[in-house]
């Protein structure tokens, strides 16, 4: 019966494999992980190779070819596979270049938030006591504040640029890292190898950096992948609201916002970038869930 799909089954002992090889085998058998990996790889390739792949310059306006429909509709042409926007810019090229913004902000924000959150989590989990109370307190404060509104406020002050968005999103969404890393560190804190390192006289920094961090890294990676999806959605929302990436730079959220006036007659202008965000975020989530299954098959959250 397939009822125990999500539970470890009582498999009899099989030949022991090296952990890395076992992980690789699990990855190869994990459909969601493979699909997610393919989508994310594709987006990354678009971002890196945008100038090579994109059929047109995403910034060049061509007012004679405004609002061309995509190729599968009447009046569409192969020159503009996904049609053009209100300034005659090629939509496909803008979507491809938009991957740069999305991936840069997504990865950058997660690096920032991952650093802040993991550091807080490690400190709180390892030292306990008032340090831990402070970390928990900071996390509660962070959770209580409306993130999107704060991001919007900060953006009006600092202006919407790639750097400011990346930093702001990074500073606002570190809580999950802190919570997960703190719990994991607490569990490790009392294990024998930490006690051994302490008795051997290792410094606290060394223990945190060399003994604990490598052991919570898997969990950080899983959270990072899931948080990247959120960072991408937040960037798109901020840009959609007009306070994030500023035109004419192509951000997917901005593309949807630019297509909004044409909702009624040119729905592809919002649906193409909207679907693109959706597919990428699905991909990242599949990748993240897959990583969790692969990296910690027994420690399902």
């Amino acid at each position, binding site marked *: *019966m397939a*009822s*125990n799909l999500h539970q470890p*089954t*009582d*498999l*009899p002992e099989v030949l022991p494999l090296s952990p890395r090889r076992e992980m690789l085998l699990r990855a190869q058998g994990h459909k969601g992980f493979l699909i997610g990996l393919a989508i994310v790889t594709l987006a990354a390739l678009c971002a890196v190779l945008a100038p090579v792949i994109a059929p047109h310059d995403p910034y060049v306006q061509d007012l004679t070819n405004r609002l061309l429909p995509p190729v599968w509709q009447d009046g569409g042409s192969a020159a503009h596979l996904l049609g053009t926007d209100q300034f005659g810019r090629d939509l496909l090229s803008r979507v491809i270049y938009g991957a740069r913004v999305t991936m840069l902000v997504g990865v950058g924000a997660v690096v920032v938030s991952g650093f802040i959150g993991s550091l807080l989590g490690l400190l709180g989990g390892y030292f306990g006591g008032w340090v831990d109370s402070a970390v928990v307190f900071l996390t509660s404060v962070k959770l209580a504040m409306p993130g999107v509104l704060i991001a919007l406020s900060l953006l009006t002050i600092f202006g919407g640029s790639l750097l400011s968005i990346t930093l702001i999103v990074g500073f606002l969404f570190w809580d999950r890292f802190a919570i997960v890393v703190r719990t994991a560190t607490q569990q490790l804190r009392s294990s024998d190898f930490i006690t051994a390192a302490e008795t051997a006289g290792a410094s606290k920094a060394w223990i945190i950096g060399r003994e604990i961090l490598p052991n919570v890294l898997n969990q950080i990676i899983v959270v990072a992948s899931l948080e990247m999806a959120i960072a991408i959605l937040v960037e798109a929302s901020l840009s959609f609201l007009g306070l994030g990436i500023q035109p004419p730079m192509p951000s997917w959220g901005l593309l949807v916002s630019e297509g909004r006036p044409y909702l009624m007659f040119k729905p592809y202008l919002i649906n193409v970038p909207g679907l693109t965000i959706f597919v990428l975020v699905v991909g990242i989530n599949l990748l993240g869930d897959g990583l969790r299954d692969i990296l910690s098959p027994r420690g399902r959250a």
Partner: protein
Amino acid sequence: MNPLVDIRNLHVSIPLTAGDLKVVRGISYTVEPGETFAIVGESGCGKSVSSLALMGLQPKQARVEADRMTFEGADILSMPRAALSRIRGVRLSMIFQDPMTALNPVYTIGDQLTEVYTAHGLGGRKAARERAIDLLERVGLHNAGARMTLYPHQLSGGLRQRVVIAMAMMCHPMLIIADEPTTALDVTVQALTLGILKKLQSEFGTAMILISHDLGVVANVADRVAVMYAGEIVETGTVAEVFAAPRHPYTHGLMSCIPGGAHLGGRLPTIPGTVPSLIGEIDGCVFRNRCHLARGACNHGRIAERLDGGHAYRCIHDPETLARQGQPHAEATR
């Protein structure tokens, strides 16, 4: 008179990738109305699973097959789910091992007691309440009316198990299956709880299948006993027959290494060796790798059941050989 429970050639297996895990391998027994039938054996010998199968509560992935498995003459195996639900809790009920987890933590004990009565349409809320209070008094929870509003965590383990016993009796069942009913309890309240169970059972004329690994409990409470090993019943008979003159080397080993005979709290002693793998068929006697009487003839086929009146056992050796050579004490070999 027809037996209350009639099980013939019951098999329970769980499919695994390495093959079928055969937890119960062709056991047969009957339970008469009002009697107490004990099943003893080490954990993993199949004693719990076989009686869960009688309730239709075996693990989801388990496969149950039998030539015959009836309760009050009705075939349990072919019974639709809904019909099975109608007799569960009413005609046959169950007492589980751990009273700390067997009761739902978020409902009062009154709610959990009356529920089984009203859900089966035996009466209204008022009648159910009266019955519940009466039963709670009988199991020794005084001032039961006031205690109906307590939550399980407000009672000690012993009292909780009494609530579980009362709950099993709510609908006046013909049979109670008690799966290690006192094992999880404090030693000091084991005898008391067992006494309450026994008293209620005789007052209501209810039959009981008692699953236990505690020989003392079995000796005190049961009329007949079946000894299970590796999914098989290796010996069965009245308590007097089996305890006084065991015919199977496994039973013999169990009995002989209890100094001073069976007493309450006497757990199953350890016999050297390990239980054979339960995956796939076992050729020959299931006990032979731990039996010092084993010889060539023990290695092949299924050992036939030998009868001596009501006393049945699966061993090719004569009782005299067993009595003379015995089975070494567990302590002596350790």
